[in-house]
């Protein structure tokens, strides 16, 4: 049983999350306290899932991309583009009047971001560029595009209905988490209840053999990058809605790094192959719990960056084959060859 869990790779992330929560149980006063205020749940745990939502959304798309042995470092910039587009279309009118209907603005933003993802997909699948190179382009240019869209200004929004996305509550829980769950469920069904998941894993493990087996690997590659762009679009909408503003320079800053970390912590290997959507969600929660724990201790928030780095080093070491082999040798157990 333990071996099966270990092989499923979700054990370690869950253990890590559990350790963090246990730590808080003992050392952080009122960490788990939840109250009902203003008609919704309120507390540290709620903060964690609310703040983790944008990263979790990115991680969903990124998990599939990484499963194909690819990477998408442009997602942070695409988040900024999404925020910029939707803000421009809604408009900063102080009365709350919108330039275009909110739904329309959101749809356009999502379309733009999916197109950005398709651009990445085209570079990787049709032109055959390495993913890090292909997405590097949009990373660099994307922020420029976002800044040009917003004319290098921060756009403030006052259209109340839009705030519901990132700040609203439904049945006591933040609305944004429903979006995450919905997208997660949809992705899970699409990949595990159809052959899509298997095809994605096959592409990641051996793209040539996949093509020879009669599977259209190019379309699959194209699709996962487009989807990653879409997820970044949704994430950008939530980010924009949460702060009711679009800052082309800072929106989505370092998001890609957090998202990739979440996926890696969740058990999906950077080399592609087997992927674990739930694991990525746990990974995102670990990162956010860490940050919230640090806030709760009144430690300067910047320290969270240092702690995140040390966590990454720790987890990477634990996942490292060499270290595991060395430990196994020391403990006298032999791994079956």
């Amino acid at each position, binding site marked *: 049983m333990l071996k099966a869990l270990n092989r499923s790779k979700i054990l370690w992330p869950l253990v890590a999350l559990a350790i963090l929560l246990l730590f808080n149980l003992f050392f952080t006063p009122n960490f788990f306290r939840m109250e009902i205020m203003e008609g919704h749940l309120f507390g540290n745990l709620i903060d964690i899932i609310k703040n983790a939502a944008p990263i979790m959304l990115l991680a969903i798309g990124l998990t599939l991309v990484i499963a194909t042995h690819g990477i998408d470092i442009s997602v942070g910039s695409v988040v900024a583009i999404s925020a910029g587009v939707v803000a421009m279309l809604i408009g900063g009118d102080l009365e709350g009047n919108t330039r275009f209907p909110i739904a329309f603005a959101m749809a356009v933003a999502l379309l733009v971001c999916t197109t950005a993802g398709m651009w990445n997909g085209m570079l990787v699948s049709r032109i055959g560029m390495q993913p890090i190179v292909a997405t590097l382009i949009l990373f660099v240019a994307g922020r420029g595009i976002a*800044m040009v869209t917003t004319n290098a200004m921060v756009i403030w929004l006052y259209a109340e209905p839009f705030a519901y996305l990132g700040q609203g509550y439904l049945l006591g829980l933040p609305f944004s988490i429903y979006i995450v769950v919905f997208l997660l469920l949809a992705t899970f069904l699409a990949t595990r209840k159809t052959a899509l998941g298997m095809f994605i894993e096959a592409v990641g493990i051996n793209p040539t053999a996949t093509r020879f087996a009669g599977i259209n690997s190019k379309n699959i590659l194209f699709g996962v990058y487009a989807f990653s762009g879409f997820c970044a679009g949704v994430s950008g909408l939530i980010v924009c809605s949460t702060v009711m503003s679009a800052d082309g320079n800072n929106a989505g800053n370092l998001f890609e*790094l957090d998202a990739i970390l979440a996926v890696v912590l969740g058990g999906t290997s950077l080399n592609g192959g087997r992927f674990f959507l739930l694991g990525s969600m746990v990974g995102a929660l670990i990162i956010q719990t860490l940050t919230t724990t640090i806030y709760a201790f009144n430690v*300067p928030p910047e320290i969270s960056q240092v702690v995140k780095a040390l966590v990454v080093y720790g987890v990477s070491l634990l996942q490292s084959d060499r270290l595991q082999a060395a430990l196994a040798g020391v403990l006298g157990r032999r791994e079956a060859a």
Partner: protein
Amino acid sequence: MKARRPVINPRSLPVLITLILFLAMFSAGSIAFMGFFSLQNFLNLFIDNAYLLILAIGMTFVIISGGIDLSVGSMLALSTMVASSLLEKSHLSPVFVIPIVLAMGTALGLFMGYLIHAFNLPPFIITLAGLYLARGLCYVVSIDTIAITNEFWQKAAYSRIDLIGYNSLTPGALIAIGIVLAGLYISRFTKFGRTVYAIGGNEQSALLMGLPVAGTKIAIYAFNGFCSALAGIVFTFYTLSGYALNGKGMELDAIAAVVIGGTLLTGGAGSILGTVVAVLVYGTIQVLIMFQGTLNSWWTRIVIGFLVFLFCFLQRLFESGKNALVWKERPQETQVSSADL
């Protein structure tokens, strides 16, 4: 037994393209704008981008070896913070500050290089975490900007070394040029430099050939850390302050410079010279935009992004073109020439 000569020498072509690009841009600027064509304007490219040049030289070695380092921007920022803090808050003399900062950068680079090699961890992740680490440590030192009032530093910032006519360079630019020359020498004339190329070409083979792969790999990251720290010091000559938000995104600028300079991100091929010309291109774009006056300076980002695309696209075309020209005996994955069903 006669050799099959490749139709186009793959090694010099990318650098040539970058060079042509630079000359084209500089000429275009000279024609379009008054006062563009001057020696000082050319030298300014080195003055204004000295820090980027140093970063990119270090990054070139990392990428040639097949690795990558995302932490250099944050390391630069950390260096500026530590330097300014030691000078202004601890009142240490520059004689101590400079070696301390350089040692710190080298040590951090060494640390990451060790993790990457000893535990076979992906450079992407480890240097990513290094980015967080360095950035976080910046804030630990100080959240606010620290202005540098130290005399030596002020002198370094304002002094000019006069050349012919009224043209001049700054100490920062000279340091950058020094690193360039060092980089050229190392890459061409030292065993260490050649081992870097070997590792990038085929690490497994390099190991079997008895090359000191472990030591070299770790040294590459240590050297890159050194360059980041040096770039930080040069940056403070330029800005006379330490600011935690410095260097955001600079690692991408450095990587872009290396790519545009003709180095393959897969490793094994590249040149210091190419990187230098690429930094000149970067600088020229910024100057062009400045001269133009109306364009948002963020357009630099977009143009650089486009150039990276162009170069990678050309590299890709060239790779598949080479496959078609050279007769490979063993079956290979070939480009499918029409769309799959």
